[in-house]
């Protein structure tokens, strides 16, 4: 029973876990500067692969595609998700509400292969050509329930007498929504948007199923390139993406920090 000893063991354990978690990422980053052209035998520092990334027009277009899909789908699904959360919030019967929530969660718990396959059938059935639109629609569809789940708790936390107060002060239904409800649940809306953004950027399986006509996103592109073997321009690309991710995380962290402060204060009275 030596607390100091115990602490150092747990510290070591945590260190190993972190080392393994970050090893692949660091590995990618380190070798993105390798002039040797392989992911072993570091030969020397070079920026050649970054140059290759920026001169690869096809890759740049795909990056752009991915971003456009992510931004559009998360914006649209945020709107739909907020509407969905408001719809569920307004349903009074507990049973109907639970039924709606269960239906909402189907797409969250479903394996993405099944989602991809079923969307493929759906799009083929209604004659939607596979490509940009089908990928966009699919991303919107699977992001909506995530936004609903992020927004609904904020609605339920909201003091319902705020709505009475707003109407009492003369606000119409639309005024109550825009001047009170939406501002109060704003942290949830932001969190939902960010979640939708990451799900969209991260998605591979669903996109893989519903894409076509030469339209591709980064995940799908990396998959096909990785199957052909190692190419250090992917390393360079992943380093860049990693930097963007970190920037996003820091941004998200700062936003949630700023959002949570007044809310916490409110609870503490």
């Amino acid at each position, binding site marked *: 029973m030596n607390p100091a000893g115990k602490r150092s063991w747990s510290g070591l354990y945590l260190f190993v876990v972190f080392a393994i978690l970050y090893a692949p990422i660091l590995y990618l980053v380190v070798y993105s500067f390798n002039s040797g052209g392989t992911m072993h035998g570091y030969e020397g520092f070079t920026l050649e692969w970054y140059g290759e990334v920026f001169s690869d027009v096809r890759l740049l277009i795909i990056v752009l595609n991915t971003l456009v899909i992510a931004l559009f789908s998360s914006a649209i699904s945020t709107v739909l998700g907020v509407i969905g959360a408001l719809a569920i919030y307004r349903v009074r019967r507990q049973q109907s509400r639970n039924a709606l929530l269960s239906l909402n969660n189907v797409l969250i718990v479903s394996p993405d292969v099944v989602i991809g396959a079923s969307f493929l059938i759906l799009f083929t059935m209604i004659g939607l050509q596979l490509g940009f639109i089908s990928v966009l629609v699919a991303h919107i569809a699977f992001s909506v329930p995530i936004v609903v789940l992020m927004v609904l708790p904020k609605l339920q936390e909201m003091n319902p007498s*705020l709505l009475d107060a707003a109407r009492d002060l003369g606000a119409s239904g639309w005024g109550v929504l825009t001047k009170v409800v939406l*501002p109060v649940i704003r942290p949830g809306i932001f969190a939902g948007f960010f979640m939708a953004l990451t799900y969209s950027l991260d998605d591979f399986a669903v996109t893989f199923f519903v894409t076509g006509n030469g339209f591709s996103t980064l995940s799908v592109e990396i998959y096909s390139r990785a199957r052909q073997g190692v190419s250090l321009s992917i390393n360079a690309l992943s380093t860049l993406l990693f930097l963007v991710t970190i920037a996003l995380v820091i941004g998200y962290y700062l936003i949630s920090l700023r959002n949570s402060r007044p809310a916490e*204060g409110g609870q503490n009275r």
Partner: protein
Amino acid sequence: MKDDAIIRFDQVTMRYGPEDVVLDKVSFELQPGKFYTLLGPSGCGKTTILRLIAGFADPTEGTVYIGDVPMNGVPANKRRVNTVFQDYALFPHLNVFENVAFGLRIKKLKKDVIQAKVSEALRFVNLVGYENRKISEMSGGQRQRVAIARAIVNEPDVLLLDEPLSALDLKLRTEMQVELRELQRRLGITFVFVTHDQEEALAMSDEIYVLNKGRIQQSGTPIDIYDEPINRFVADFIGESNILEGKMIRDYRVEFGGSEFDCVDGGFLPNELVEIVIRPEDLEVVSPEEGKLKVRVESQLFRGVHYEIVGRDRSGNRWLVHSTRSVKVGDEIGLRFGPEAIHVMRFGETEEDFDRRLEAFAEVNHAK
């Protein structure tokens, strides 16, 4: 009087289910410029009345009038009344200024008008200098004031207050009682104040409505209600009292506790069984010989301003006495009281019956 009533309830019934009757054919009217209190235990329907006036609910039957206009179906945002909520319901995303300005912005008033009105409202509630504070930075009492400012800035005809003091501690509550009363006088508008605290009601109101189980039990000035409760519920709910059974021998003569006494009530049947109310502070402790009633002391508690003495008379009735004089437990003491201290109530009498009886009695007396 009907013409100048600012709020009128006409046979208003509120039902949430066939068995769940919250208000049962309630009728009353409120005059402008007065401070009204709806008083009753939780679930008596007082908050429902407030919600019906504010427009958060519509009556199942009957009509609510504001001014002389029926309000059924008119939404809350179209009514010239404003509410101070129990939990204040201040908007957490807006600062103090914007909270108060909320209603004015909805009306799309000009910027400088809004600025002027908000400043004036904040001056009214002594919150000048707090404009840019966040709600989370305000204390309970300050939030209360913001909520009041936010309501009165819209210059409503009626201000509704839903137990606004219940979240405050005792000292602050007493201060706010004085301030609210003062505010109502300065504004000159009607206040409808909901509370379950009888002391609050007695201290602040021009008129009190005592409610129980969806019906108005009694209405009147605080003094009327305190001195002339019409039934056991009101007597019990307002202040402390000795309530015991008795018999009305004839007008001005009543029997209880084994003796007959003179009293000031009349209009009963001969030998009618009645309930007697005597307030503990109307009883004077004297020697057994001097007393109209003899009581054996069972317990005594020191309450600060007075001693609270509990005793029992020979017929077994329990007597609560407030006295500045200390007595000994186990001693026999005498109780003295005047005829006007005895208040006689008919069993199960409603307010209308009570008024009718008094009128009839007065006419008979007049004829004599």
